[in-house]
């Protein structure tokens, strides 16, 4: 076993060696521009891009002509939200999203609010799920877009996308989903789920960074978008710019592998995740799972370790790469807004760790990580005045905390 161990696969995934092999020729001899339609270098690149387009379409049950390549999922989210808003401005000015979305969606929506659009940010329950009733009630005759992510990047919670798509379809509203964490990890089919637009990212499915895609439905209904980037009219005019051919080839290969191995991988991620969860739950008291345990990505475990601050826990397991919802690990010094939206108290949000198990994690690694976490949590609890007070039977909520006004 090699240290450090990477178990932060929601942030990014390592490149699958098979993906790298597929990409390499397109960095070297096959360097053509896919838009060069008058020589073999161009044809070669274009063919490779079209193969990748089919591989990606196949992963999500789409037609290859419905895949628009982008620089990544942030661009895809921006294009979907702002592109739909601009295109359908005359039809309406209302967008529905939810509070636990990725910042690429939330900030795009906030940008539109400044331009006079109305945005409804649906709340989530303590499991991280939106209420379909809330969604139905939020739709007005001005609603042009519903954007709800399929699986959350922090807590791994999977929304009922099929039901949301059904509601959107019945009400004649376009439905976009950020499927970055879901595609290639769980079954995801744009037709079964009535999805009109979907954001995808290569580097979350063992492909390269810097390449993503937006699925844009062509029929029933045909979705139109105002482009964000103007230029040579690439990607059916929706996204100009010379295509990142090696990146796209890698994305295609990654999608093909994900599609071929999906069932096996779901079972394996789930097995390892449950092993980690059960070991931690057996060895430690007062640990809490954040978000719904059933409707959850198989590789995701987000847990709060009461009385142990997240950053200090990460420091203790410094040969393991995971992430924390603690304020101290974020640029904003605020604890995770996702956990907050689930109603996780700020005290417990500060103690949260996100484990993201991926394709290349092993049993041995899971055992090692579990043992390290257990040891460090026990050590830090011995150091924690909160643990001491709790053991003395003091209700921490009843304590009048001093100096809180400084923060």
């Amino acid at each position, binding site marked *: 076993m090699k240290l450090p161990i990477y178990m932060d696969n929601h942030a990014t995934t390592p490149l699958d060696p098979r993906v790298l092999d597929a990409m390499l020729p397109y960095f070297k001899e096959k360097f053509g521009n896919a838009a060069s339609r008058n020589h073999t270098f161009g044809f070669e690149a274009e063919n490779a891009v079209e193969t990748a387009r089919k591989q990606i379409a196949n992963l999500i049950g789409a037609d290859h002509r419905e895949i628009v390549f982008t620089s990544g999922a942030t661009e895809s989210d921006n294009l979907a939200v702002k592109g739909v808003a601009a295109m359908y401005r005359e039809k309406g000015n209302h967008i529905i999203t939810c509070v636990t979305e990725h910042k690429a969606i939330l900030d795009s929506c906030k940008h539109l609010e400044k331009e006079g659009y109305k945005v409804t940010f649906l709340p989530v329950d303590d499991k991280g799920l939106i209420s379909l009733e809330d969604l139905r009630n939020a739709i007005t005759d001005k609603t042009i877009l519903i954007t709800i992510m399929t699986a959350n990047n922090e807590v791994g919670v999977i929304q009922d996308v099929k039901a949301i798509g059904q509601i959107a379809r019945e009400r004649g509203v376009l439905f976009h989903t950020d499927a970055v964490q879901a595609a290639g990890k769980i079954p995801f089919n744009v037709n079964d789920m009535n999805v009109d637009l979907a954001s995808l990212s290569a580097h979350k499915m063992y492909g390269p960074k810097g390449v993503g895609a937006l699925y844009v439905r062509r029929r029933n209904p045909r979705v139109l978008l105002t482009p964000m980037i103007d230029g040579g009219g690439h990607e059916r005019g929706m996204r100009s710019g010379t295509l990142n051919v090696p990146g796209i080839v890698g994305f295609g290969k990654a999608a093909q592998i994900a599609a071929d191995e999906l069932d096996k991988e779901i079972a394996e991620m789930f097995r390892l995740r449950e092993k980690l969860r059960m070991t931690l739950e057996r060895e430690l008291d007062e640990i809490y799972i954040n978000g719904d345990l059933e409707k959850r990505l198989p590789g995701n475990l987000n847990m709060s370790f009461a009385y142990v601050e997240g950053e200090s826990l990460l420091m203790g397991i410094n040969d393991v790469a995971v992430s924390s919802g*603690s304020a101290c*690990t974020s640029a904003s010094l605020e604890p995770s807004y996702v956990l907050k939206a689930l109603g996780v108290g700020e005290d417990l949000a500060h103690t949260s760790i996100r484990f993201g198990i991926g394709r290349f994690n092993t049993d041995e690694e899971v055992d090692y990580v579990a043992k390290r976490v257990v040891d460090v949590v026990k050590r830090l609890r011995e*150091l*924690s005045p909160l643990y001491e007070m709790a053991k003395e039977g003091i209700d921490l909520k009843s304590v009048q*905390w001093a*100096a*809180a006004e*400084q*923060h």
Partner: protein
Amino acid sequence: MAYSDKVIDHYNNPRNVGALPKEDEDVGTGLVGAPECGDVMKLQIKVNAETEVIEDAKFKTFGCGSAIASSSLATEWVKGKTVAEALAIKNTDIVKELSLPPVKIHCSVLAEDAIKAAISDWKKKHN
């Protein structure tokens, strides 16, 4: 975030972890911070009533590595000092000693507060 060697050393080998009997006449206890803020420090001192010298100090901290290091260092520094000398310890001294980055300055502020709170608790018992 990159930690200084001194922060890592205090995190791995925290000095003076533990508790003193808080009902004891000679013991002053300071509890500062709040769980919602991600930092809580408990610092205790045992003071010789005659000489006003801090003979022992213990701490427990819930917080990031810098918070643990700041309070660990604070216990090291107050030990052997008189109450008046301990009151003169400034958070900036802690920042300098541990090379804390700007985002972690609040950890040093909390440690200074903890020293002052412990001393004030001890003084209260002696009024």
